[in-house]
């Protein structure tokens, strides 16, 4: 298993993109559940002026190599954290600022705990360590809500996007459809997306937050169904010395809905840290 991974071309496997100033500090941008590295497209040009920007797709998302998929590995956040570490090792990245969106924030926590010499700063964009309410903790969703999401993923993916239909119905004999899919944004194999969704929304990383020792910036949106304000405050309180910035943005993807504010917060943090 290890031998096989070591022998694989990680750059190809994770569709790694490197851009920006070659001698600049390294920013590693990690997408969350639902899309791929395209999520960062509105902030990358500005970041590239000052930083060396590394982007990638987790196996199972975007244009990562689907043949590298391993359902067991990617059924836990550790599997995704290993993708991060593999990319760091392949490019020999050190002193990296890891910018993780949504569930990737928690992936970053796991990766930083394993390789603190590589990941030395964390930026969490709309993080939530646990989506399900638990006694005093308000994650924003009941266990039934999450079941409903997973069930609708199960029963509903046929219709989610017309673009997905060829994947589901099998398009081996119509390669032009596959071609279209690979060039469209955020096209994901539904089976792999289901596993990622389950791993994301059933994870509980609250205990892992305590392990963070590196400088950490938390970005939350003023209005976010998936990561409500209470969760942002919980994450800040759980990580000593962390900074919480509330962006004037709605939704779960401030890098798309408020790219300028997101950029400003990251740049400010990089200058201070």
């Amino acid at each position, binding site marked *: 298993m290890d031998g096989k991974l070591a022998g694989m071309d990680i750059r190809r496997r994770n569709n790694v993109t490197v851009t920006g100033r070659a001698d600049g500090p390294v920013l590693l941008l990690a997408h969350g559940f639902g*899309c791929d590295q395209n999520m960062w497209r509105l902030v990358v040009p500005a970041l590239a002026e000052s930083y060396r920007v590394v982007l990638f797709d987790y196996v199972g998302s975007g244009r990562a190599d689907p043949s590298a998929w391993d359902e067991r590995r990617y059924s836990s956040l550790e599997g995704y954290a290993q993708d991060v570490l593999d990319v760091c090792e392949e490019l020999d990245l050190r002193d990296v600022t890891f910018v993780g969106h949504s569930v990737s924030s928690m992936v970053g926590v796991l990766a930083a705990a394993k390789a603190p010499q590589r990941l030395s700063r964390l930026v969490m964009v709309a993080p939530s360590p646990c989506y399900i309410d638990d006694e005093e903790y308000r994650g924003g969703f009941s266990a039934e809500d999450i079941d409903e999401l997973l069930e609708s*993923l199960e029963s*509903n993916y046929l*219709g989610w996007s017309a673009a997905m239909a060829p994947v*589901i119905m099998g398009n081996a004999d119509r390669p032009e459809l596959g071609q279209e899919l690979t060039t469209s944004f955020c096209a994901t194999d539904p089976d792999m997306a289901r596993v990622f969704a389950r791993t994301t929304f059933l994870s509980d990383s609250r205990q892992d937050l305590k392990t963070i020792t590196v400088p950490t910036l938390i970005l939350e949106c003023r209005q976010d169904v998936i990561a409500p304000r209470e969760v942002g405050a919980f994450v800040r309180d759980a990580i000593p010395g962390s900074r919480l910035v509330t962006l004037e943005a709605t939704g779960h993807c401030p890098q798309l*809905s408020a790219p300028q504010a997101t950029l400003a917060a990251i740049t400010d943090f990089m200058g201070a840290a």
Partner: protein
Amino acid sequence: MMCRTDQSAPEPGEEQDVDATDAVFTSLLEDSAEELYEQAPCGYLSTLMDGTIAKINTTLLDWLGLERSRVVGRMRFADLLTVGGKLYHETHFAPLLQMKGEVSGIAMDIKTAGKQRMPALVTSKVKTSEDGEPMLIRTTVFDARERRAYEAELLRGRKAAEEARRQAEADRIRLQEALAVLQQSLLPPELPEVPGLETGSYYHTASPDLLGGDFYDLFPVGSGRWAFFLGDVCGKGPQAAAVTSLTRHTLRAAALHDADPVTVLNTLNTVLHDRYTSGDTRYCTAIFGVLEPDDGHFGVHLASGGHPSALIQRADGSADYLPTPGGLLVGVLPQASFTAARARLLPGDTLLLYTDGLTEARTGPDRELYGDDALRAFTAAQPPAGPKALITALSGLLASFGDGLDDDTALLALGVPAALPTPGAKV
């Protein structure tokens, strides 16, 4: 499509209908844009960029069972969705819309008046100002209840097909494992060590279910003597395998009682004939023999029942058949005669037994039989380097036949090493 204004005009031509047609047209023209919007057969809404609902039509309000005053300026589009739909909206729909400016035909469930889910197909497009700034999002919502029901059927069908495929695959693996165990029981796991003798064997199975009809064995029969046999049961598959099993065990048991080759084949003939005569004749061809060590060489005494003659590769590089003409198939007649032959294996000599898969393989562009002469020539062309080297050369030959080799093939080679290692010397 369903949102388009219905422009189907009345059938033209009928003189007396002209007045009626005019009346329909007039009423259509009086159908205001506002009316079309409010009562359209699909839901319409417009939202600010943050999702706040600015405008919504009556059709959608009716589906939702909500008052306009409770919705406009107070709710966001995502608030109209079920929890699953909300999460999907935030993780997929909204990012795609922000990136591409439009998203079409996405299935999400909306919450209806009676706390029911209503499957819908949602299409959104961002309206931008003249200088390209996004201003608002226009969204249409189609009722997809029936379509979703069809999709559910499709998914159910797909799941059932996948389950059936998984089951079939599991059955196939189980069957193959069982067949592999059975097949292994038909051949010795490995040939025993025989003092002063080198051995080699090879088995090629042509049938996809792994059950061939060829067999061989080598085993001691007392007083330093060793018995060997190799044969071919007619047919393939489970029935042939059952005959193979019976044949193999009969030969071993008979040899322990009396290892004389003709006697052993006679016993096998009787057993097969008695067992399979009634309408289901099963027979085999076989060579059975005994090796007797004698001062650095081996005496060979063998008999054949309808089986291709053994071939001896001599230390001097020549190769000759050991003829056993006239032996009958084993198991066909109640009494059969078998032909015996004797030979001596001197140091460097190798005795080769094979089944007709080898000599009846098809070769060349004309698909001619490989044949006895070619086998002898091939063997004579090999350096006399012992059974293992000969088997290696022959298995290479078999591989070179490709799909010209369409039968099972068994090879067994027994030889006396050219220079016996002196006691204590390194082998």
